[in-house]
């Protein structure tokens, strides 16, 4: 059985750990708030892009733009969005498990986040590129990722570009998710994505009802406009997905750290009880010794 000093030492170390996990919990909570705000702030742009694409759809055919054209052949390119740091519960594990079950062995990877890079290197998957994205995420950082994916898709190397990310449902629930980024299917164009949330941003009203778009002018031409709009759409979509992953990361970390803090508190309680019991036992036995010694002297 551990002696008094050992228990005291353990209580101290558990207390320190609890302090750290508590601090991490609070930091994660504020970062989660920011990530969620960021995701919400991006919705007007997504809404607007969707609206314009809806209009464009009526004036163009999928053949007008290579990114809308499903060739259906070639390997998959997977953009894997994971966290840079651990201590965020089963977030990365869930996503990586989904990768092993859903993604074919010969797929290439673009990793965003060091956890994904390490896991892919360990399992011997081919990594085409690795991008670091800071916290908070900026569009300027995610744009090169989508540009890179678009470029490789257009070169004909890959048949599809997928994104593996974690969808933020709510604070206690995050779902690992694989979404097709390219090619954009015409049905998908302008349709609201589940992860963008069903709530309308309210800022930009939907004006697509009952209006005739016959008189639209495209400058310089519908094709040229598609060339601008489609990459922008892909870029903002990827940006949204990365924001979702970030919000998931922080909320998962917050929940994990909350559990750790609670566990530590319980442990301190148990150890303190143990400590007091032993201290009492020691006092009792000391008293007993003194009384016995006194009796012996009489």
């Amino acid at each position: 059985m551990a002696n008094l000093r050992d228990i005291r030492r353990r209580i101290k170390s558990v207390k320190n750990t609890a302090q750290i996990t508590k601090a991490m919990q609070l930091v994660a909570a504020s970062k989660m708030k920011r990530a969620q705000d960021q995701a919400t702030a991006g919705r007007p742009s997504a809404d607007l892009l969707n609206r314009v694409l809806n209009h464009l759809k009526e004036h163009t055919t999928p053949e007008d733009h290579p990114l809308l054209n499903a060739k259906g052949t070639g390997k998959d390119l997977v953009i894997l969005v994971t966290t840079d740091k651990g201590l965020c519960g089963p977030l990365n594990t869930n996503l990586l498990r989904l990768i092993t079950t859903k993604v074919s062995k010969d797929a290439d990877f673009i990793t965003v986040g060091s956890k994904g890079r390490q896991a892919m290197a360990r399992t011997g998957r081919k990594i085409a590129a690795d991008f670091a994205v800071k916290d908070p995420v900026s569009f300027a950082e995610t744009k090169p990722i989508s540009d890179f994916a678009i470029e490789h898709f257009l070169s004909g190397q890959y048949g599809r570009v997928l994104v593996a990310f974690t969808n933020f449902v709510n604070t206690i629930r995050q779902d690992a998710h694989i979404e097709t980024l390219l090619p954009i299917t015409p049905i998908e164009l302008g349709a609201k994505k589940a992860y963008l949330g069903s709530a309308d941003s309210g800022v930009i009203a939907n004006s697509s009802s009952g209006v005739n778009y016959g008189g639209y002018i495209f400058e310089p031409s519908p094709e040229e406009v598609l060339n601008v709009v489609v990459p922008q759409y892909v870029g903002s979509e990827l940006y949204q997905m990365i924001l979702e992953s970030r919000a998931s990361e922080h909320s998962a970390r917050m929940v994990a750290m909350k559990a750790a803090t609670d566990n530590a508190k319980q442990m301190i309680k148990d150890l303190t009880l143990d400590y007091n019991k032993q201290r009492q036992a020691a006092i009792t036995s000391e008293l007993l010794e003194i009384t016995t010694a006194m009796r012996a002297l009489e």
Partner: protein
Amino acid sequence: MRLEIVTPEKLVFSDEIDSVVVPGSEGEMGILPAHAPIVSALRPGELHFLQKGEATSLAIGTGFVEVSNDRVSVVTDMALGVGEIDESAVEQAIENARKAMSEKALPEDIAAASLALQKSLAQLHVKRKRRQL
């Protein structure tokens, strides 16, 4: 007429305005109320609009503008007001871009650097113009 300027990061501006001039890919384009529906590509440059007789300038990146139902929607990857532009940082960026354009051999690198250069020049243009006034 309502003007909306959005970047993927946020809604930059959304209010009633009198007129707006945007840097279209085919040249500057002024839009007044009741403009015909149009979708146009944008190049990096200066966007300025009049609101109650007061002019405001923004440096914008690539993107597009859509006009319909007396509503002007600008979707771009950059939209900075005069106060948000850091002149020395922009000058540094211009220098970097120029250097990259003279060194790099790959055409796509040159294209990327040239785009960065255009964006930086647009920022500088907006910033400097404001100071002369």
